[in-house]
């Protein structure tokens, strides 16, 4: 037990979580608790204890796991550690206990709206990002003030809600706080115009000093590196005149209220567009009634292209997914009639079971002589056991659905033995199986999904690497400053998006969000690279945090990993589409996009010129032309319209091209 002093305490603080189930099976959406700032011999510690765990004995001992292990264990010379590990404790609340040393804090985001509930997000030095704490009865400001007594906080110039920790203040004596603090730190909580002017003054004076320094010291160069020098033509047409980066950021954090940014004053004028994204329309999901009206009397979809656009705009109602996905995943051709679909189902059923029999009928001796098969079988068995076990559908020992998962993956191995089974395929199959709730349908939809995604899993990983490199290339055009920052920090390979891209965001969003995001992407509207734009929108939303926290490559990786389940999907889709619209406008203006960007985003632009589509809406016609002009090698002609391969030929990327990107003007 450690003696400790409570410096700050505030109850009624909540974590808004995706539904989790507690031991009794009731869903918890909000986890309430108390936030403490305490001091003990280890230093000052910020701690969140969920209601119901106050009395557990780890509350105040160092036995208690800290966030990301920011606790200290001591090993003495005899090699005995403090204690044996704690293991099982079944309360689902345990994972909502958080604590970290103030010393490990890197920055704080505090959001407060005029009438809303304020919340704070803490980001640690190694990039770990805690969930947002909502202060239902206030107190976030007090906590911030309290923290400001021990750490030197500085408000970000880019983002008025971000407080960067500059360094620790010397311990205790309050008089020193004044002496040690500089610039705007003292004005953190002022409101109104007065503070505005002081902020500006603070900023200016720093800049002046910086400029003087730069004359004598070469290493100040860093500060000026990465300044954005793309000023693309046609800025004004794009309506990106009054860029407001905050609005981009806000949209990712739910409670969007621009009034606050006015309070804080401070508008930064950007030279480049892409900051202010055009508004786009998004709709509610397609309803059953709406869906039924899409078919003619033979059960044929009358206008497949507009259906795709409609799905892109709002997705499908849950009950429609079972049908809708079969079209989206090319199990049913878009031009099929009800009768032909019955035939297809029958035929596919036979096909499936004969493939299933192939591996089911293998004898032990046969397997003994087939190393590759055995390896894959054991990998599938291992992974099936750890696929989405938190979802109700897969919960419990001896769950029957796990068996289906296993059988489908084994059968896919026979269907496509060259590719076989690769980790991540289980993740892709899981939602498909849950939606279909039928072995055969799930298999064939999975086949359709793998036609899109299969390239990601190839042995040499070249496809996924190319996708990641395309991401960086696009970023160079859209936000050169951020792209340069990543390059300087050894992150231009964008590996931090590896998991996001490999399994198409499967692990980054709640189950329901994944269903929507996937069907949006599967429409291939407005372009077949929409997933790249989704990644870019996420990354750009984190620009300020990453750059002002001066994250290196480890911290960036950690930070992006920790964004899982924290990004709001709808605003994200708007941002991604906004990026698309701007790229499209650039492409159509003269001189157009740099070739390297064009080849990633609009690989079929030339073919588009000879299309024969009714183009009322430019954007739509592009999508449809993309769909009609690409062909697939993996697709059997008897089996529906041509599939767009989820693949970009980027062999045109070379040094010269990327030079074009960075210096376009």
């Amino acid at each position, binding site marked *: 037990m450690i*003696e400790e002093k409570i410096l700050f305490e505030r109850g009624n603080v909540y974590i808004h979580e995706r539904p989790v189930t507690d031991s009794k099976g009731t869903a918890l959406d909000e986890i309430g608790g108390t936030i403490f700032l305490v001091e003990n011999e280890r230093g000052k510690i910020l701690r969140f204890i969920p209601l119901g765990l106050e009395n557990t004995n780890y509350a105040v001992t160092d036995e208690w796991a800290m966030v990301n292990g920011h606790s200290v264990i001591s090993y003495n010379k005899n*090699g005995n550690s403090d204690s044996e590990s704690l293991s099982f404790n079944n309360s689902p609340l345990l994972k909502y206990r958080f604590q970290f040393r103030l010393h490990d804090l890197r920055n704080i985001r505090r959001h407060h709206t005029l009438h809303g509930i304020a919340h704070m997000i803490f980001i640690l030095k*190694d990039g770990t990002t805690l969930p947002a704490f909502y202060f239902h009865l206030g107190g976030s400001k007090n906590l911030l003030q309290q923290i400001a007594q021990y750490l030197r906080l*500085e408000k970000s110039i880019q983002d008025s809600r971000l407080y960067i920790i500059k360094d*620790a203040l010397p311990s205790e004596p309050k008089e020193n706080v004044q002496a040690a603090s500089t610039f705007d730190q003292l004005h953190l909580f002022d409101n109104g115009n007065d503070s505005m002017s002081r902020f500006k003054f603070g900023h200016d004076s720093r800049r002046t000093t910086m400029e003087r320094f730069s004359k004598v010291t070469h290493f100040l160069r860093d500060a000026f590196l990465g300044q954005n020098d793309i000023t693309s033509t046609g800025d004004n047409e794009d309506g990106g005149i009054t860029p407001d980066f905050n609005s981009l950021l806000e949209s990712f954090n739910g409670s969007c209220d621009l009034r606050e940014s006015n309070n804080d004053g401070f508008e930064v004028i950007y030279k480049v567009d892409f900051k202010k994204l055009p508004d786009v329309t998004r709709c509610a999901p397609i309803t059953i009634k709406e869906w039924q009206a899409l078919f003619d009397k033979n059960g044929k979809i009358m206008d497949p292209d507009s259906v795709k656009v409609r799905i892109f705009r709002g997705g499908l109602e849950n009950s429609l997914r079972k049908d809708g996905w079969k079209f989206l995943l090319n199990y049913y051709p878009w031009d099929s009639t009800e009768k032909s679909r019955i035939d297809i189902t029958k035929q596919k059923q036979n096909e499936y079971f004969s493939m299933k029999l192939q591996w089911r009928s293998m004898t032990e001796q046969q397997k003994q002589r087939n190393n590759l098969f055995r390896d894959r079988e054991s990998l599938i068995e291992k992974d099936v056991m750890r696929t989405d076990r938190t979802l109700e559908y897969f919960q419990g020992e001896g769950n029957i659905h796990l068996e289906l998962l296993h059988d489908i993956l084994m059968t896919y191995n026979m269907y496509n033995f060259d590719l076989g089974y690769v*980790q991540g395929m289980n993740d892709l199959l899981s939602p498909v199986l849950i939606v279909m709730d039928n072995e055969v349908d799930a298999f064939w939809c999975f086949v359709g999904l793998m036609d899109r995604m299969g390239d990601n899993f190839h*042995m040499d990983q070249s496809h996924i690497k190319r996708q990641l490199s395309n991401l960086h290339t696009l970023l160079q055009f859209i936000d050169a400053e951020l792209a340069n920052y990543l390059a300087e920090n050894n992150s231009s390979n964008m590996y931090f998006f*590896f998991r996001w891209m490999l399994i198409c965001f499967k692990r980054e969003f709640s189950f329901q969000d994944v269903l929507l995001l996937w069907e949006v992407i599967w429409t291939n509207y407005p372009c077949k690279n929409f997933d790249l734009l989704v990644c870019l929108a996420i990354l750009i939303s984190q620009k300020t945090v990453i750059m002002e926290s001066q994250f290196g490559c480890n911290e960036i*990786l950690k930070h992006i990993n920790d964004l899982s389940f924290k990004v709001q999907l709808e605003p994200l889709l708007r941002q991604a589409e906004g990026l698309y619209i701007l790229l499209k406008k650039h492409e159509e203006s003269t001189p157009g996009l740099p070739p390297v960007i064009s080849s990633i985003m609009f690989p079929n632009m030339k073919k588009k010129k000879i299309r024969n589509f009714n183009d009322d809406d430019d954007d739509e016609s592009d999508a449809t032309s993309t769909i009609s002009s690409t062909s697939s090698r993996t697709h059997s002609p008897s089996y529906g319209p041509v599939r767009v391969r989820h693949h970009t030929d980027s062999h045109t990327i070379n040094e010269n091209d990327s030079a074009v990107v960075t210096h376009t003007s």
Partner: protein
Amino acid sequence: MLELLFQKIDIKRSINMSARKKVLLKVIILGDSGVGKTSLMNQFVNRKFTNQYKATIGADFLTKEVQIDDRLVTMQIWDTAGQERFQSLGVAFYRGADCCVLVYDVTVANSFKSLESWRDEFLIQAGPRDPENFPFVVIGNKIDLENRLIQIRKAQTWCTDKNNIPYFETSAKEGVNVEKAFETVARNALSREKEIDTPDFPIPLRMPNEEQQNESGCSYTKLNGRCSGIELTQRPPLPLNDIPNLLSLLYNQDEFLY
């Protein structure tokens, strides 16, 4: 009064600690898919186990501070994907490692056989100086299961043959021996520091004391003088908008010596 006492102790501790550099140890966990790499890391760092982990995709790390005798050490533990084809991406993270933990599952014979290739692959990719003496630790995990296939002696023999790699048997599920194993990881990584006192090649200096200070004022240094591109560039740029801190860096002040 009591509080005052604590404060004094605190300051004293701080000065003691600051007398020696704070050390960051980078540890890589390797081994076949499903042997329990993620579980081991989480048991060690968070003292938690759940059977709901998913197969690791990509890479992630957790950090934990441990005190080894009188030294405070930050362990940065990297968890990687076990499936072979994802290794080409993982290697980017091998560089600059101070210790490598090789894990197998005592109930899966193949996972033991793979140790050899994991070790070789690591040495090739990470390219550490003095590969013969690079610190490995081998962990046989899942001893809580009954159907064990690899006998202790067999594993120990292998480790002895490989230049006496320390060997531990653990249960990440029940938290058995996990801390002991990681203590050895930390100790062996640290002991290398003493053996090698001159770096292979000097770290290119861009400012007088870049090596010791990061912008937060706390000093991390890589052991062994090895440096990869990653560590060099991951050091944050100077706090240019922060003159007092900048000055303190220039004069090489310690954060505790205000």
